[in-house]
């Protein structure tokens, strides 16, 4: 499989087949909290896509050069201080702390940027913009990248990491925008009282999850089409 095909497959896998929200349940908080209006939901999706790509990029770099087993930087330091070269150096125990630090910093950066250039969007996000830090989807993207950097024989490159995180962000945007569209219509409906608000939103999410299960197997078809086109 050539590089382009595998990138497209990773992207589709993260965006549709294993949608971050509807298959892995990450990012449910904003999915339920910021999905009342389509424009706000779309803005939130774009912000998450941006942050997840930036932090995926940074965390890939940190993992590749410092944190993975046998990474170049700690090995070089270890040998420079005269350690036994046969020993394997593995700093992955530090990875969670470093990931969350990187994510918190990039969210701070995005918050400053949005407040300066899109004050309207900033007001409609409210408390949910700083809460992107605690959006599971962002950390989940970094953890998936880390999983692909453990086996030294088949390491993921930066392009694959970016395809995964971009796909995850796009999948989140699709899911939250669809949800907001449905909920805007739902305002007119007579919902049973105990299910008002979060309850009915979760029912919609369940039905959407069922619909997204229909994407299983799409990757084979896409693979066939792409290999026919690229031949």
């Amino acid at each position, binding site marked *: 499989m050539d590089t382009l095909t595998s990138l497209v497959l990773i992207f589709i896998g993260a965006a549709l087949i294993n949608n971050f929200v509807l298959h892995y349940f990450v990012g449910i908080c904003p999915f339920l*909290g910021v999905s009342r209006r389509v424009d706000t939901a779309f803005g939130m999706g774009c912000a998450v896509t941006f942050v997840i790509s930036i932090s995926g990029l940074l965390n890939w770099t940190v993992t590749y050069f410092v944190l993975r087993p046998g990474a170049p930087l700690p090995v070089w330091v270890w040998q420079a201080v005269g350690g036994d070269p046969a020993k394997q150096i593995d700093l992955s125990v530090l990875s969670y702390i470093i990931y969350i630090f990187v994510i918190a910093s990039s969210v701070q950066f995005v918050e400053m940027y949005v407040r300066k250039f899109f004050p309207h969007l900033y007001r409609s996000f409210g408390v949910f913009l700083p809460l992107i830090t605690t959006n599971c989807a962002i950390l989940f993207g970094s953890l998936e990248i880390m999983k692909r950097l453990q086996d030294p024989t088949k390491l993921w490159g930066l392009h694959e990491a970016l395809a995964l995180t971009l796909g995850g962000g796009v999948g989140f945007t699709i899911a939250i925008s669809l949800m907001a569209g449905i909920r805007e219509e739902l305002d007119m409906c007579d919902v049973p009282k105990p299910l008002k608000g979060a309850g009915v939103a979760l029912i919609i999410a369940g039905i959407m999850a069922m619909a997204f299960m229909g994407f299983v197997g799409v990757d084979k078809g896409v693979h066939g089409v792409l290999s026919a086109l690229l031949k």
Partner: protein
Amino acid sequence: MKRDGPTALERFINGVLPENPVYRQLLGMCPTLAVTNGMKPAMTMAAATAFVLICANIIVSLIRGLLKPHLRILVFTLTIATFVTIADRFLAAYMYEMSKQLGPYVPLIIVNCLIISRCEICASKQSLGVAAADAVGMSLGFAAALASIATVREILGSGSWFGISVLPAAWPGWGIMVLPPGAFLTLVLLLGIAEWMSARRRRAPERQSETESECSLHGHAH
């Protein structure tokens, strides 16, 4: 007599039912939905979350005098991340199969809104005893919620409970219940029942005028 704040016992009881993290506050949705396809993963997740929540609340409560307003969220997350690393290493060492099955959801405890919100709302303002009692109560409430969802999903989905089969072997097993849509639908069902029951109890003319405790979370983001 005028009180300074909630007592430890109040906070403990509050976490279990009146402010149940899942059913009343809709916090910690990610593990609630993701690991409840069986009782074993759900209870392991509840135990790991309880460990992290209690330790983080204790530490945050001890350093609450040193916190700077603009850096506090960062301090909370780094504290939590440290304890999550400990829990993750422990699971990988002693319960390898379970650790594989839970996969990324153990590190995702770091971004569980439940823990951060308890650090922010309670532990950073209250003394050690109150914060610890609050954490224990919230952990119990979270475990109870996970157990209720996992019970429904595992019994209907695979006809077993904690891996022991409870339904006759002819039970077809509703595949959808252990798949992602089943998680959403079970949660809605139990959430609706909880709402309905509390609405019915509220209609009965009784202690409506409960004084709201200082740690309570009314009008939270959801």
